[in-house]
């Protein structure tokens, strides 16, 4: 793990010149341990990757690295678990032979080790980059690391600051899902931006502390249908899918949304919201390109009602939906949307209680992730709003994932799919017609 100076051949237009540094909390946290809840550990193999694009101009030019870094010190005072490192609990003293095989429970040691900051450059203009619509551009703008193989020295959050040739700025966050779900992560980043802009953010709620062991399901029970059991995972927390996975984002404009909503008029169970409609469209398209075989989908949603108010928690609901009988490739989008609205089997508690290591996203089934209620465009830096935000995921299983988030003006939706790289082109083609307004 020796970092050489960047001397290798740089592909034209690639992101290069990475310089790493660390930001720590501004005051000493002390001997504090942050216990991980069962729900947290269920998501430990996944990593959120979010990129925010800011347009070139005077404001962007004034955003030197120091300006971006300085507010992070007090920010980490509030979010000190994010600056910690994963450790495993001490072995039970004089344990019998039986205990030796079971891996010890992970927790976060809040030792102020810090968050990694990466500074990089790109020799292309931001507009050109965005227009290019290359698959997996997310991976270049978010530092591509996971927890492990040395858990002791693996940061839970990386922030990459990429400067484009035109002066535009991209902020890439690589967040370990273990420490918090999508709404927690986005709120955390928004608070940093508020401190940067001189506003005083709301208090961070990290209590009550997670209770380590809640009702664990007995050993030998099979995994819930929403997830896939893997492992056992040692210290490298990534299950590499057999196939190369890539993220690809596409925009669903509000005209297309209106068209989809029209299609479900006249149905007696027209209760589907935009998330159900958009993800149903994605479900149908993926089923088409795979030639059927996507009968069940896992649905991960942010229910505002279900949240406890804790600033760092994994509280998204996990469930599955089985398409009744007919293949989703041939079913109407409206009908699929109705299924998603009504027939979700909630398995949140079962997933948390399950004792083995699981893949939630893309493990057992194609996973649909609802990010509609997450305010991603609120990350304003000195009044500068991002022109584009896209959220993807790493550590996704081969079945793939679909993330639905609001777009820049809030009326349409931005969908990011995480699929095997060779399915991306077929998806693009299949979507082409569906996304055209009639």
């Amino acid at each position, binding site marked *: *793990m*020796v*970092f050489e100076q960047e001397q290798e051949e740089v592909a034209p237009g690639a992101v290069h010149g990475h*310089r*790493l*540094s*660390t*930001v*720590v909390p*501004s*005051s*000493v946290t002390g001997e504090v341990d942050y216990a991980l809840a069962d729900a947290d550990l269920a998501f430990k193999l996944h990593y959120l990757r979010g990129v925010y694009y800011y347009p070139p101009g005077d404001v962007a030019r004034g955003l030197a690295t120091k300006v971006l*870094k*300085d507010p992070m*010190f*007090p920010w980490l005072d509030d979010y000190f678990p994010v600056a910690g*490192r994963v450790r495993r609990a001490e072995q039970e003293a004089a344990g019998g032979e039986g205990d030796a095989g079971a891996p010890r429970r992970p927790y976060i040691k809040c*030792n*102020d*080790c*810090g968050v990694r900051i990466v500074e990089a450059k790109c020799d292309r203009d931001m507009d050109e980059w965005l227009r290019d619509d290359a698959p997996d551009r997310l991976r270049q703008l978010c530092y591509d690391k996971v927890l492990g193989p*040395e858990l*002791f*020295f693996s940061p839970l959050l990386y922030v990459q600051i990429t400067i484009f040739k035109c002066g535009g700025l991209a902020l890439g966050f690589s967040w370990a899902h273990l420490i918090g779900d999508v709404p927690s992560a986005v709120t955390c980043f928004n608070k940093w931006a508020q401190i940067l802009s001189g506003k005083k953010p709301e208090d961070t709620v990290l209590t009550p502390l997670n209770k380590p062991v809640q009702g664990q399901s007995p050993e030998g029970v099979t995994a819930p249908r929403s997830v896939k059991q893997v492992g056992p995972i040692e210290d490298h927390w990534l299950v590499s899918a057999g196939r190369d996975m890539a993220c690809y984002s596409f925009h669903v404009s509000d005209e297309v949304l209106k068209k989809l909503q029209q299609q479900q008029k006249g149905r007696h169970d027209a209760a589907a919201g935009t998330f159900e409609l958009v993800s149903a469209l994605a479900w149908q398209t993926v089923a088409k390109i795979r030639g059927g075989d996507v009968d069940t989908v896992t649905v991960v949603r942010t229910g505002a009602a279900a949240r406890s108010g804790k600033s760092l928690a994994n509280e998204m609901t996990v469930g599955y939906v089985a398409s009744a009988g007919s293949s989703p490739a041939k079913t109407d989008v409206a009908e699929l949307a109705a299924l998603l609205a009504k027939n979700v089997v909630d398995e949140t508690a079962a997933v948390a209680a399950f004792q083995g290591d699981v893949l939630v996203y893309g493990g057992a089934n194609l996973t649909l992730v609802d990010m509609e209620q997450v305010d991603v465009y609120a990350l304003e830096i000195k009044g500068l709003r991002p022109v584009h935000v896209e959220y993807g995921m790493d550590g996704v299983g081969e079945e793939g994932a679909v993330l639905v988030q609001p777009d820049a003006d809030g009326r349409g939706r931005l969908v990011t799919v995480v699929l095997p790289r060779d399915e991306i082109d077929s998806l693009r083609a299949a979507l082409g017609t569906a996304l055209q307004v009639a």
Partner: protein
Amino acid sequence: MPTGGVFSGSVNLKYVKLGYQYLVNHFLTLLLVPVMAATALELARLGPGELLSLWRSLELDLVHILCSAFLVVFVGTVYVMSRPRPVYLVDYACYKPPASCRVPFATFMEHTRLISDDDKRVRFQTRILERSGLGEDTCLPPANHYIPPNPSMEASRAEAQVVIFSAIDDLVRRTGLKPKDIDILVVNCSLFSPTPSLSAMIINKYKLRSNIRSFNLSGMGCSAGLISIDLARDMLQVHPNSNALVVSTEIITPNFYQGSRRDMLLPNCLFRMGAAAILLSNRRREARRAKYRLVHVVRTHKGADDRAYRCVYQEEDDQGFSGISLSKELMAIAGDALKSNITTIGPLVLPMSEQLLFFFRLVGRKLINKTWKPYIPDFKLAFEHFCIHAGGRAVIDELQKNLQLSPRHVEASRMTLHRFGNTSSSSLWYELAYIEAKGRMRRGDRVWQIGFGSGFKCNSAVWKCLRSIKTPTNGPWDDCIHRYPVDVPEVVKL
């Protein structure tokens, strides 16, 4: 009150010792009192009439009286003029690094692991850090927060500007010092010596006078702070009515050691950012507001001995990385240097009682019995406060043992090491600031600052406090003094 047996023996001894000290230290007073009493009695017995006739019998006329008066005035003037000018320490300021430079243990270890594949090196540095006596608040300059560190000349200059200018700005705020009033400028920074010098950098930034006498001392190690004070004092003897600005610092940026030699890895773990700016003056009117007066400066250089010369040595290792190697004999040599220094400073500061004891024991060892242990004078009788260079835990432990000091006396040094790390020549000033921030500095207190440095040198300065210092002091300890003293564990578990 202890009773009986063993305790009464030691209590008696204590009183004997106290009595002896009082007798010897006030010997002249005790001798003078009976003489004066006898004279007064005699005068009373003679009566005024006899005194007058005694006076007339001397047959003094005007010329005699005038000559005598002239003689008295002449001797008095020569005496007053030949005394050295008093050197006052008007005030001083220490640089407080921002929280954005903070380096917790975990971050330091993680960076070490990421920079080097050498497992042994990482484990060695972990062990040093665990036993170092440093805390989680110490700071490194921004260039050292990069993986790997980024030691360019620009970054070094930037660090120098931040630490030095902040310290001087703070000093100006405290004393109202005007740039045109600085007559002498002495800067010491051992390991960073650009052209133009750091003193020129200060002159440029603050637009100091063109006839300023500036000096830039480099390469003189961690004891250079007291060497600068000594130089400023000598200059103030030559130049009447002058102010001297002394700046002590060490610039960390260019000195990160990138290799794996164990004897060179220690500085990486211990050295931290720091700077101090001190205003010295020989102007009479400063005496009113000055905090301290400089009483003695004693410098001891053991460089003539080869072992001492090589014990802190900057060189390149086999891979070409430059670093400072510390020899295993460092503590022994430091002890030696300290003994030499004490031999010189002892007679200057110790009360007569201690000097006599030392003398008799020395005579006894030479003439009567060679196995007698040498008498270690009790410096606690000579000083109220001790500032021992926070070079590392081992140095402080060694000195505490050699000088038989209590934990309270070395508290300032240990806490400075914990909060600020080894800031090299400026550490003595952080320690003094600690004592002041704790409200322990009273008028008349005497302070002994001891610095050690490459060469091998041991330098001492003795200050006398001129006015009690009130808290809060607006110094680098203000926001954290309530947490101190902390108990620094022998080994921190990382």
